[in-house]
């Protein structure tokens, strides 16, 4: 005892340690588990329904199982403001929400009719929604998209944020994150670009046998059994992988106009399903926002035209129609655009700003549509003639002009023209801006020059 007392006297911090242990050990032992008190949110959906906000949380339900399967559920709440909707959802859930793991935020198109940043403010500033969360828009309901996302993960093993990350790396010129949205929102041009995920609801679940060949291709790409066509099982299938596969088949070929339209779209890449009733279509579309409001929608061709100005994005291909091949016959040719070299310059001539993009593109012939003619030609060894190069250039220019018109009409500078001029010719650009009646309409007053060099690659 004396030894212990001596030790305590020599090392008084032992007392502090003992006090801390005495105080906190019972507290820790008798506290309920954190998961009982706090729900882990994996994705958030925000909808505008009439005059109310509806917020939906895709939450992780921690429970023991032997199948290594994550159990998720979608819980939603409504309110006249986002904070009220969050409280309502918490009441429904019976738990507080933790947003640190929220990797996806979805809003429906209606939310983008007004400045969406005011709705997001509470989430990001007060309840700490991470800014690296993937931020996308959907056409119907964010809540239903989340429910379909859950199914997508169960059936295809694919998370929505992974799907969007692929788009962000390969198609979009920027990340499609909340951070990227805010970057654009707070910039002088107030324009941002976010991903768009189409959500198609099926009106009927039957009639799965009439699907086209492109559908089964999509299923195979998703890791599903393409041979299955059990549309009749779709309504009852829930989470099982084979049931899910059937559901995809059913919903994608289910005879509704949305499904048929989607199956014909070349840009379609991935599909998920929700119990045979709805599906997610990722066509890599994007929505242009200005001051937080939707001003335009860009398809994958528009995005590829934007990507023409970036060396990083390389998943572009182009089809030129009715060109003469080496054998003299008229065919359609598809080329892969590779190894882009881009140099952006800005200049002023007689007070007119000129945006010059010098682009050198390597093209590789990947496919020839012979239109039923017999042609004996190796696609790989085909030389790119001047005529073909000119056709490619013409096509790229027309696509670029189409994209530019959309941006000019919507006064949305998602190609960072403002930044380029500000960096390159700051004084002249400020003078030019001050000369404009509508300073925000500068894109319409800038001349764009696209100098292209097409070279054979591969």
């Amino acid at each position, binding site marked *: 005892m004396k030894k212990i007392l001596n030790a305590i006297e020599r090392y008084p*911090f032992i007392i502090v*340690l003992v006090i801390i242990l005495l105080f906190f050990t019972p507290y820790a032992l008798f506290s309920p588990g954190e998961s009982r008190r706090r729900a882990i949110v994996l994705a958030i959906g925000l909808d505008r329904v009439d005059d109310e906000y509806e917020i939906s949380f895709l939450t992780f339900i921690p429970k023991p199982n032997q199948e290594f399967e994550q159990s998720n559920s979608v819980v939603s709440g409504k309110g006249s403001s986002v904070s009220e909707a969050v409280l309502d959802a918490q009441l429904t859930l019976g738990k507080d929400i*933790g947003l640190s793991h929220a990797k996806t935020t979805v809003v429906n198109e209606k939310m983008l009719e007004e400045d969406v940043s005011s709705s997001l403010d509470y989430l990001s500033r007060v309840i*700490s929604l991470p*800014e690296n*969360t993937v931020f996308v828009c959907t056409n119907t309901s964010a809540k239903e998209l989340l429910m379909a996302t859950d199914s997508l993960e169960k059936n295809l093993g694919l998370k929505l*944020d992974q799907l969007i990350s692929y788009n962000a790396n390969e198609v979009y010129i920027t*990340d499609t994150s909340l*951070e990227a949205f805010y970057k654009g929102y707070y910039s002088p041009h107030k324009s941002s670009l976010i991903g768009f995920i189409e959500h198609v609801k099926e009106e009927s679940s039957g009639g799965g046998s009439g699907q086209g060949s492109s559908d089964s291709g999509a299923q195979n790409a998703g890791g599903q059994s393409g041979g299955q066509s059990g549309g009749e099982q779709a309504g009852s299938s829930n989470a099982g992988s084979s049931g899910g596969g059937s559901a995809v088949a059913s919903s994608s070929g289910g005879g509704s106009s949305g499904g048929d339209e989607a199956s014909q779209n070349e840009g379609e890449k991935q599909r998920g399903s929700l119990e045979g009733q709805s599906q997610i279509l990722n066509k890599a579309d994007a929505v242009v926002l200005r001051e937080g409001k939707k001003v335009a929608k860009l398809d994958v061709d528009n995005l590829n035209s934007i990507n023409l100005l970036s060396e990083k994005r390389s998943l572009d291909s182009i089809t030129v129609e009715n060109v003469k091949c080496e054998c003299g016959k008229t065919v359609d040719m598809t080329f892969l655009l590779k190894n882009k070299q881009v140099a952006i310059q800005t200049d002023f001539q007689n007070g007119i700003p000129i945006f010059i993009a010098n682009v050198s593109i390597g093209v590789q012939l990947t496919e020839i549509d012979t239109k039923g003619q017999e042609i004996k030609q190796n696609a790989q060894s085909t030389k790119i003639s001047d005529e073909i190069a000119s056709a490619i250039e013409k096509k790229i220019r027309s696509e670029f002009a189409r994209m530019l018109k959309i941006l000019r009409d919507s006064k949305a500078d998602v190609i960072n023209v403002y930044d380029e001029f500000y960096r390159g010719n700051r004084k002249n650009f400020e003078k030019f801006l001050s000369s404009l009646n509508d300073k925000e309409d500068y894109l319409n007053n800038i001349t764009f020059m696209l100098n292209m060099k097409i070279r054979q690659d591969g």
Partner: protein
Amino acid sequence: MKTISARQTGIIVFLTILANKILVLPSILYKSSDADSIFVMLTLFLIEFLILLVFLKLKKNYPNQTFLNILQEKLGKIIAKTIIFVFLVFFLFKTMLTYSVLFVYLKDLVYQDEFGFLALICLIPVINHAAAIGLRSMSRTFEMFYYLVVVGIVFCLAIAFFTDITMPMLFVAPVSSMFSSAWKCLFAFGDYLVLFIFIDRITIKKGEAKKVMLFALVGIIFVLAIFTIFYSKYQLTSFMHNNALADLLVFSVQFNAIGRLDIVAMLTIMTLGLFQLEIFHTAFCDCFVMVFSKLSIKYAIVVFDILFAVIYLVLIAKYEVMIDLASNILPYLAILTSYLLPILFYALSFKHKSEVKDEKDS
């Protein structure tokens, strides 16, 4: 007397340079002077470096004397103790600011619920212990963890290069806003002042002064690199990110898909924060013992704990209040401690001819 080497002194300098500058400061400065805040930091670092030179000169001329003795000898007991008391207040608030910034970072990442008391009883015993065991043991610990901290910072900086970064727009802010920024961050500086307090326990052999300067330079480069890369990565949204070093690593969709890398930043920041708190707390205790020479370090520790609990938990209570205090009121104190007094110390570093003669004779 147990002294510390030039290398250990350098590591202390390195650690204090990073204090309060790598989390919330870049964001605060961006609000007032955009990316041009880098120039504000650069200017203040240059001035700070001059203070290091003043310290080295003072150390050279008074190799074994305590700071109190040097001041007493030149200025008299009352003025000397008043100056030390000013430093005591300075280090008390420095500790509070460092704690506050660290606590908010941990709250964002770990606690979620605001539980200041838990953080306090975790940290206070540790920093009390550090102050009690003395500068030498503390410096050895810093020496052991030095490379870990360096690797952590370099990792955070390196990861940022794997995401989209663009050089921020410079020369945008007006000069007046640069002065406003400089004022706001004044209290985050004054890093070398701890060296004056520890002056008698520092051994700098001939030619080793360069070693201390090198560590200071590494610290300055790291801070400027964090500012530059942070502004390059976030640009217009820099004002939204309160944890610069951690956010360099975290906010990227690419790494979002991989998983959470923020554990690296968390460990680095926690280690750095703890060491900085230990240094400032020890400096406070040393000042206390110098002012109240009849009281031992144990009293200094107890007084610190009481003052910290009362001022921080009761009067300041909130992180926002502390930041507001540090960027509006405390710069007045920083002007005195970090700029006016070092000028005085520079004057004191010169020895009178008679003193030199006496030394030669003896």
